[in-house]
């Protein structure tokens, strides 16, 4: 459904990390933030906010 909104697959990730896997948790968060940084802002506010949206 998010594709219909123009939101790329790479912006959404579902993963499982056990409470004992601190390193893995940090690695996944770093990967995800890096990936999002590359994709740039979503830009949804354009057309959403102003009266002339």
């Amino acid at each position: 459904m998010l594709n219909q909104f123009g939101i790329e697959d790479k912006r959404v990730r579902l993963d499982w990390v056990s409470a004992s896997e601190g390193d893995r948790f940090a690695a996944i968060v770093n990967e995800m933030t890096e990936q999002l940084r590359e994709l740039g802002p979503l830009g949804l506010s354009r057309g959403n906010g102003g009266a002339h949206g």
Partner: protein
Amino acid sequence: MAKLKLALYWAASCGGCEIAQLQIGEKLLKLAEVADIVFWPVAIDVKYKDVEAMPDKSIDVCLFNGGIRTSEQEHLAKLLREKSKVLIAYGACAYVGGIPGLANLFDKQSIFERVYLETQSTDNPNKVTPQTKHQVTEGELTIPELYDTVKSLPQTVPVEYIIPGCPPEEKTTWMALEALIEGKLPPVGAVISHNAKAVCDDCQRKRDVKKVKKFYRTYEITTDPQICLLEQGLLCAGLATRGGCGAPCPQANMPCTGCYGPAQGVTDQGAHFLSAVASVIDSSDKNEIQKIVDDIPDPVGTFYRYSLPDSLLRRARIK
């Protein structure tokens, strides 16, 4: 007691709300006893300039249907807000954007390209698309501007009440009008309906936790008249949708499409509907789940049939 001054307006809508207002039948006479209609473009010839000339707050109640997608509709929303003591968002389009709100999957340019250039029946060699201004010998002609994004009325101006539905059921309309006539107004911000709980609370069908292996479109199966439609694989929005309509659609073997808007406590109707659908899927195999979900045509149009402008995302990204 002086008669109430009543105004009715239509913005981005289909005209069905006017039919719904007439549906109260002989109760219209009761309404006419206590109210004078001062503005109603569908039925009486009162010009915008006449409304502009009215003193502020001189209209007691305005029933406003339709979403806001042009400069004209935005102007009228602001004007009627100024002129009305009580402004009511009437119907799904004014409340949450409605069917025209699905235009938020596109933008003005792509809509113009599709409608004026690409459609099979279009013959437009000069590639003319609507312009807001045009010079002719007699002077300048203007038409309102179409916006990229459809908004609901409460996203445009503050409203006192909401009457939900596409269109609102006769009893919902009358519940609101009766409260106005008797001066027994609910607290400001109220969504007026007979049942704040979900449509399922109005629905007589039985739920027996049957799990779904495949979703169907209505023409693809014959349903059991006693069992919950969602549990039979039809995409019924009842769980996510405000009741009070009396669940006429499920009683006629049609799944609820969500026209009364989000049930009380639900922020994003489509997300809530999606979550209900996810909970009935009977599989833990990733590939099988994918296949079951792929059977759902046009997810945004299904889950956000009426409420895309009111959703958390509000619209698709503009490229």
